[in-house]
């Protein structure tokens, strides 16, 4: 785990070297006034941005460890603060997507494997292949235009006009920054409903691709599990078909699906960027997309590092879950 993280920072640093020193200065700036030409030259001198790469790396790395990822022009705040302020929106989106993805994905995967080559199998496979061939941003915009433009339901953005104003006002105490939970904590149901209404379309868009992927993986591992020896043994013991599938086959089929969920998390992070940009959800994804557009190097690289850390820790959790599910790993 640690070497991968170290490697990740090295890679990020390598990417920074592609830029000229002036723009790289943004990585070391802590307050907005420093964007004047003289201030940047002074920073170039102080941090020795023209020296050879390895010397800079130690300085940059110590800065990063101190938590100074530079200043983001687009976010008009130090990168670390900008990220922290934007995380709740993304977490909210991901929080509502994951249960759908996991439950529906596994359910459909099992169903289509059990009824192999029957209508339900072809439909699920067809839908799942279509799901994974749909450009998510195109789907998002089509849904928006149909529902928002057409029926004036599920508008983009995180909260409706009035709800947004109320949340900004100090009458509303922000515990976690996640609207739905804060609304409940504050006992404001109408804000909760408003937040949910805004969340429907992004959740649909973000989970279609992921569900398509899980259904395909689950189906193939389920098919593999179904013709193993212990399934025939279970049937020979007199177990009903339902128990054979749900107890014996499904638990074994889950193992390969869990190991591949690392790719799922990567897909999730990518999806977040696009979904937030389409629906105007100002989470971490949308901010980094805008930063990339406006050549705000510090923001983009800060976000990349953040995403790397999230991804590596998520993979670690997946490995632990994997060891829990598969006894062969746990005792080895």
């Amino acid at each position: 785990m640690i070497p991968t993280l170290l490697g990740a920072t090295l890679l990020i640093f390598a990417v920074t070297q592609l830029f000229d020193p002036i723009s790289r200065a943004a990585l070391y700036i802590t307050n907005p006034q420093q964007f004047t030409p003289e201030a940047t030259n002074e920073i170039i001198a102080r941090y020795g941005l023209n020296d050879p790469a390895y010397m800079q790396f130690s300085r940059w790395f110590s800065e990063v460890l101190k938590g100074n990822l530079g200043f983001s022009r687009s976010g008009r705040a130090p990168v670390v603060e900008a990220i922290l302020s934007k995380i709740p929106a993304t977490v909210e989106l991901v929080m509502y997507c994951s249960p759908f993805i996991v439950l529906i994905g596994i359910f459909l995967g099992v169903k289509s494997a059990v009824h192999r080559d029957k209508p339900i199998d072809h439909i699920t496979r067809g839908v799942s292949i279509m799901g994974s061939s749909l450009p998510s941003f195109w789907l998002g915009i089509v849904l928006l235009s149909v529902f928002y433009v057409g029926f004036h339901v599920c508008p983009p953005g995180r909260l409706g006009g009035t709800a947004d104003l109320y949340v900004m006002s100090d009458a509303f105490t922000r515990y976690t920054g996640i609207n739905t939970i804060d609304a409940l904590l504050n006992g404001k149901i109408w804000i909760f409903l408003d937040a949910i209404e805004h969340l429907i379309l992004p959740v649909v868009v973000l989970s279609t691709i992921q569900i398509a992927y899980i259904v395909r993986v689950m189906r193939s591992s389920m098919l593999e599990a179904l013709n193993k020896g212990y399934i025939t043994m279970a049937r020979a013991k007199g177990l009903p078909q339902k128990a054979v599938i749900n107890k014996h086959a499904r638990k074994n089929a889950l193992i390969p699906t869990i190991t591949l969920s690392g790719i799922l998390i990567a897909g999730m992070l990518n999806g977040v960027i696009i979904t937030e940009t389409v629906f105007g959800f100002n989470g971490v994804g949308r901010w980094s997309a805008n930063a990339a557009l406006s050549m705000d190097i510090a923001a983009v690289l800060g976000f990349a590092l953040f995403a790397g850390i999230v991804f590596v820790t998520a993979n670690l959790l997946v490995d632990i879950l994997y060891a829990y599910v598969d006894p062969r790993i746990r005792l080895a």
Partner: protein
Amino acid sequence: MLILGSGWRDQMGVKSRFQEFKVGIDPTVKEIKFMLSRVRKSPLSLIGTSIVVFYAVIALLAPVLAPPNPSWTVTQISDPFAIPREKYQSTPSPPSELHPFGTAEWNYDLFYGCIWGTITAFRVGLYVVFGSLAIGLFIGVVAGYYGGVIDELMMRFTDVIFAFPGLILAMALVTAFGRSLDNVMLALLLIGWPSYTRLIRGEILRIKQEDYVEAAKAVGCSDFRVIIRHVLPNSIYPIVVVASLDIGSLVLSAAALSFLGLGAPEYFADWGQLISTSQNWMLKGWDYWYTFIIPGVFIFTFVLGWNLLGDAFRDILDPTLRRR
């Protein structure tokens, strides 16, 4: 297939050589016939193959279907991928006789954009896949077959690249290289090759333990010959499946980058970019539907075709099904 290897070259006499070739090719033809019969059998693969072939034809006939610098164009540009414009009108106009698909913002002819967009899609897909395959093959084979330090080093390096979700690293790279389609392809290539390396290394490790590889060594084959004649021919098939699936997802990623404004420039004939510009028109209501729906349908069917083809390959080449 590899039957045209050294065994054939040193026969004597042209006639016997041709006769030898005819007899020699016979089993391969039988193999291909068998695969085609399996393709005909499953409906999904039929649709997939027909879509991909349809797009290939469009790409080949692009200069005929939509000749560059048509008569009505305003600007004379040499680059065929720049979409011609009739007039400087900013609002998109509906499909008309001159512009079968209508025109997008700033009057870019959608028909031309979509046709030439097919070529961009093929270019992005094939260039990145074959690039990744080449790198992946070389490193994967060396790491898989010889193992030891090289293997360890390579795997740690691919782990690092895997630590980043693809799109984010691509964004960082494109910001670094500057915004153009070639840079998008380069970024996707840099992100793509590790997954191929790991896949090929896995296949090599699996095939390396088979008896026939050890038997080849027992006969005295050099490592090079073992890799070329025994290990690679048997590990190529699963890679073909992944490659065809990957082309679809690559086009999607490129389109996503263009959508975020990091891909092809504004005038370029690329589906992602066409959708990106038509985005705000879409939110103004349904009367500009064509600027948005048509490129979307193109991307969707193109990627769908490749995914179906990949799925069909997996069923055909799945050894358990083949020889039942």
